[in-house]
């Protein structure tokens, strides 16, 4: 009997242990390695970094570490500018996403109940189709002789070709397009739950519809606004595909910088240092996001 309860404890202990172990090995450890390599010197050999870590040589490990790569990051203002520009582009995109996403989510929440699940499915559906393909579709639209120019010229709105591709605007359009479901769904979730009588009560107490929107709807939708914004802002900062395909060579973004350090310059330690830099930029939003999510999960019935 006792033996059986021991095996039972063992099997039930495996439930958290297996995924825990997996994430430890394939998520946490790689992370520490990035951190370590960011502190090592580039070498010409393949792989292109000097392996500073030998299990037998702990003292050597610490003495060989230096912050040279980070010094390089601070000396060359390219990285500083790339970081700033990434944050700026991500922030502007997030604001645009809110402006585009809120009316859609609001419309969905006010639609008759029997249509709502269909609308949600329609918002999610593009997400299931390839990200790369969806960005690719915009190249043909935004090209100087592309479909947007053709359409607008056809309507007589413009006479000269629009040159949007390879500008920051193309990046904004791409990010808003690709991340829209991530903004709309959390907003919809809070707006849909909102009690309509609260708005009626505000109107009844003399508040105009516009004022009621700002004093009642927006504050109550705040959890959704915060979740949606972070859900878009965080990956947007590190975005690579969109600036690479839609943004011109002038569009500086840190994810793209990391990619080119790695693939073009083959400087792995510097790429790791850039990764750490990116992570430092994102630590605060990620922590806030985790808190918001945890609270949302708790308050759910």
């Amino acid at each position: 009997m006792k033996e059986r309860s021991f095996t039972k404890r063992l099997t039930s202990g495996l439930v958290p242990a297996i995924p825990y172990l997996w994430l430890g090995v394939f998520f946490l450890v790689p992370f520490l390695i990035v951190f370590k390599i960011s502190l090592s010197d580039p070498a010409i050999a393949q792989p292109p970094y000097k392996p500073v870590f030998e299990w037998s040589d702990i003292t050597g490990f610490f003495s060989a570490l230096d912050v040279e790569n980070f010094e390089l990051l601070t000396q060359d203002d390219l990285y500083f500018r790339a970081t700033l520009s990434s944050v700026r582009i991500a922030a502007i995109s997030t604001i645009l996403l809110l402006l585009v996403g809120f009316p859609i989510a609001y419309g969905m929440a006010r639609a008759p109940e029997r249509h709502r699940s269909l609308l949600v499915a329609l918002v999610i559906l593009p997400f299931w189709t390839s990200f790369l393909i969806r960005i690719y579709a915009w190249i043909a639209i935004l090209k100087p002789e592309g479909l947007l120019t053709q359409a607008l010229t056809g309507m007589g709105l413009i006479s000269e070709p629009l040159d949007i591709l390879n500008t920051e605007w193309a990046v904004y359009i791409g990010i808003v397009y690709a991340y829209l479901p991530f903004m709309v769904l959390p907003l919809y979730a809070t707006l849909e739950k909102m009690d309509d009588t609260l708005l009626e009560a505000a109107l009844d107490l003399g508040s105009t519809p516009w004022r009621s929107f700002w004093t009642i709807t927006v504050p109550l939708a705040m959890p959704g606004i915060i979740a949606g914004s972070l859900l878009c802002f965080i990956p947007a900062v590190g975005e690579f595909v969109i600036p690479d395909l839609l943004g011109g060579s002038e569009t500086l973004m840190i994810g793209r910088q990391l990619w080119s350090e790695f693939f073009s310059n083959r400087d792995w330690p510097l790429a790791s240092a850039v990764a750490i830099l990116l992570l430092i930029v994102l630590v605060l939003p990620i922590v806030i996001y985790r808190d918001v999510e945890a609270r949302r999960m708790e308050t759910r019935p």
Partner: protein
Amino acid sequence: MPPPSRQSASASVGAVRRAFAPWADPDAKPLIRFENVTKRFGEAVAVDHLTLDIFEGEFFCLLGPSGCGKTTLMRMLAGFEFPTEGVITLAGQSLEGVPPYRRPVNMMFQSYALFPHMSVEKNIAFGLRQDGLPKSEILDRVGEMLRLVQLEKLAKRYPSQLSGGQRQRVALARALAKRPKVLLLDEPLGALDKKLREETQFELMDIQHELGMTFVVVTHDQEEAMTMADRIAVMDHGRIVQVATPGEIYEQPKTRFIAEFVGDVNILEGHVQGQENGLWHVKSPSAEMPLTIDDPDEVLHSGQAVAIAVRPEKMVVQREKPGPEAVNVLTGEVWDIGYLGDWTVYRIRLETGEILRVSCANVSRFVESPIDWDEQVYVTFAPGAAVILAE
């Protein structure tokens, strides 16, 4: 000289609540007037050619089963719905096209609709802030409201930290804070438990009396309406079936629907035989002898099919056969006995298979040889205890 109608008899029907009856005064101007108002939602008619006057200072109840149109009527008064046809006026002014935020009418919502992100104070101050009142005045008014509903200590709390009864008070204070001409209350006590509901009924009456404000209450609970209202409008299928004081509604229901909806009632079917000394004689298959009913206002002709409504407490159940001079005697056997403490309810099965409900006040703690199950009994009622309802 007004014709001798039900109105003139009102003093003798039911209990008198207070000497206040502007509706009986032909010169009185109503505060709220619905004139031939119809509201349709697509095909469905929620309110059907309805005309109604409500007077200043009244405690007015709209009573009816769910879906009868009472809530739509209230929402049209608040401005959330607009009539498809007809006009609503408030103090002589048409409300046509006036949005809810421009009406001197406030509402206490059934769900209370307290703003969850605002404290009690902020909730109560919300309406006042919309009017742009000076800060000090808002503060005074909020304090006054908090005192009125006895919530001074909870001013800083949030709705989620309050009990159901406290929330109800906050909702009331918030709606009263702007001193509206009319306060609308949508099922104000629906969410409270029975004990609290009874207390709150009387509190609402006191507050209304103190402020002299016009209250319009929507409820499906007839007891609530009976306790609080000066007048009750009973609604069914978008129409008003009867508007009268609680006493009249109970003692002189106009239709069988009202008799059955408000309180308990026994219905006996029959045909008019004729009138004698102002009393009607009705032949009913439920009784051996014709029934004698004192309902002089009813205009009937011989042979007309009618229903006779008798309230359970107005019937007497006894074991001994009544004398030959007795009127309105029914025979049956005891089917069920329900002891409720203050009342005992007997369900008597007549020979026709009908079940009558007779209630008896338990005036004494001791009863000698109480009536038992399956006993043969006689049920009687006085001619004035019954109402004739034309079918």
